[in-house]
């Protein structure tokens, strides 16, 4: 077994699938010779050639639109958009076309493609490089939105995303790109795309998160155990479609739920989870569902981003409030 960072796991999933399926083509700005600005495609052009790992002009709308055409022809394009903040020129293509092509043509033309983008704050990046806007895409019918939080899940979920017959927005939490290695078996095995992962069993409270915030959530769970609170931790991983069953099942045992995400609070993925808990889990709930999130503000530039990001303290406070609720 190999030891990889999340970033290396992404690259290895690419390498596996480029080797296994000649229809797979990787395209984006700086993905070829430079191996991507984060090096997620480092060395792939050397191995697989410039026709399969393609440096494009600087133009997100056509990169995604072109990928739609490629997908319609049976290729499996994997698009890298350099940062999530630069996905917006392509939103027309993603929402009006990628997400709808199957429906519009009653299945005659489909769109198996992956749109990757690093996202989230905490690495002292410049303006527009730190936002978390996964809810925009999760809200759109016809898209899968997948967010890995560990090397093993990055590897398995990316393979699943590439093999999925529909468009997948694959968002990579860059704050944990190089944070620690994990043993991963390089066997080309995909993970299920439509289910949450229970990372820690617990009986007192359910903590639900995804992406880089999993780190603080697990840390909070560890600290909470020292004060006698036994938290279950769920990594949602596939934001949409949402595996609410796993969350409902957990909350049916704990009765309490705290949702943690870096994105702004209102109208976010946390709101959807809370709404579903209020709908189907109401009889299990012993306390109001709480959200620990970024604020409904523009993400501050890096010097002040810590004020914005939900840290361990805020998670612990929310859990305590939830536990004290009678």
């Amino acid at each position, binding site marked *: 077994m190999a030891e990889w960072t999340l970033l290396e796991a992404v690259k290895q999933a690419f390498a596996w699938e480029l080797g296994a399926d000649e229809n797979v083509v990787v395209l984006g700005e*700086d993905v070829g010779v430079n191996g991507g600005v984060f090096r997620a495609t480092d060395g792939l052009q050397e191995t697989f050639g410039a026709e399969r790992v393609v440096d494009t002009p600087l*133009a997100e*709308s056509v990169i995604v639109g072109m990928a739609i055409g490629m997908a319609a022809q049976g290729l499996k394009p994997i698009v890298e958009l350099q940062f999530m*903040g630069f996905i*917006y020129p392509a939103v027309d293509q993603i929402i009006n076309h990628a997400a709808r092509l199957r429906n519009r043509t009653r299945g005659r033309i489909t769109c198996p493609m992956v749109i990757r983008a690093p996202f989230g704050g905490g690495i*002292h990046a410049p303006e527009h490089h730190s936002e978390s806007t996964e809810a925009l895409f999760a809200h759109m019918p016809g898209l899968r939105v997948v967010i890995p939080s560990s090397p093993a899940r990055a590897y398995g979920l990316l393979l699943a995303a590439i093999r999925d017959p529909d468009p997948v927005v694959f968002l990579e939490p860059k704050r944990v790109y190089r944070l620690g290695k994990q043993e991963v078996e390089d066997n080309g095995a995909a993970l299920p795309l439509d289910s949450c992962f229970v990372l820690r069993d617990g009986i007192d409270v359910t903590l639900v998160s995804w992406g880089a915030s999993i780190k603080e959530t697990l840390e909070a769970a560890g600290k909470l155990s020292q004060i006698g609170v036994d938290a279950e931790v769920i990594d949602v991983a596939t934001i949409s479609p949402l595996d609410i069953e796993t969350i409902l099942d957990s909350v049916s045992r704990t009765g309490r739920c705290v949702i943690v995400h870096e994105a702004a609070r209102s109208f976010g993925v946390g709101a959807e989870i809370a709404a579903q808990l209020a709908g189907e889990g109401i009889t299990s709930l012993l306390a109001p569902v709480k959200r620990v999130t970024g604020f*409904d503000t523009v993400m501050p*530039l890096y*010097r002040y981003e810590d004020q914005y990001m939900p840290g361990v*303290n805020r998670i612990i406070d929310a859990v305590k409030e939830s536990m004290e609720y009678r």
Partner: protein
Amino acid sequence: MQGTDFNIETVEFLDPSGKLKRPLPDALGGRDKLIHLYRIMVLTRVFDRAAINLQRTGALGTYPSNEGQEAIGAGVGLAMQDTDVLVPYYRDVATQIQRGTLLEEILVYWGGDERGMCFSNQAEDFPVSVPIATQCCHATGIAYAMKYRRQNRAVVTTCGDGATSKGDFYESINIAGAMKLPVVFVVNNNRWAISVPLEKQTAAKTIAQKAFAVGIDGIRVDGNDAIAVYQVVSEALEHARGQHRPSIVEALSYRLCDHTTADDASRYRDQKELDQARELEPLIRFKAYLQSEHQWSETEDEALYVDCDSQVKKAIDAYKATPDQQPGEFFNYMFAKPTANLEKQKKEYFAEVKRHG
């Protein structure tokens, strides 16, 4: 006509050795304006080195260097009138400092603080735009407003060669032509967009020719020649102000630096190409020209560097002495009037600060 062959002239005044190829523009007669151009370039270079050092020591975030781009900003800045508006991208230090933006404000911005965009001496210029080419669109709107009010003003917007591949760029030059807007699109063609060379960016032989497709003027200028940039942009601005004739000015330069401090250009760029480009860089030729034609002495040159050094040091001191933002300041600028929701979240935030510091 061959579809790709427009034979657009490249305007040049100074050759790489510093010899004038044609008479100096009248407006630059005398020593003062020339020394001003040189001073701006030196100041930009000195500032740039200091900013990179600050980044290396952790005192500044990711920073995009201006090395090799100084003549463009020097010329553009001098060509603009105070009443014009600049809508810049992120390699425009030399322009911005002529527009009243303070060096410390530029540092505050790249140091991760919004206050670096609240220029104390500049009311209308936009802050730099990070999402590529988006600023071109804003420039057309500003130009529309100027024309709407019958003002004798114009807009300069800048972008890189890579940016000209984006829809925003094409849409902007097209609408500027269709509506006859007073705007000049200055394209800094430094041959690279991070790791993507111009040849992979476009099959067009020039960027200036993109103007012709939308019916506006397109011209090329040696972007290592501050005099040429000044002259070409001055004329373009006159046409924009007086006749509402928009244009593209393609300034040919070379990115002598890494893309940003987060980049390592040696991964994708040939050292030989870089070495060759260095010989054409803007400061060397300008100094040679001043020396041979305007009695510029080594003593004066040294004094200029000393002066720029001290100006930059003062800016760094001011940057470092900038007091922290108020905690939770990021709540304060979301809407003209704070919303109930934000007030509530702000309270929550302060309660948290009180509990945990």
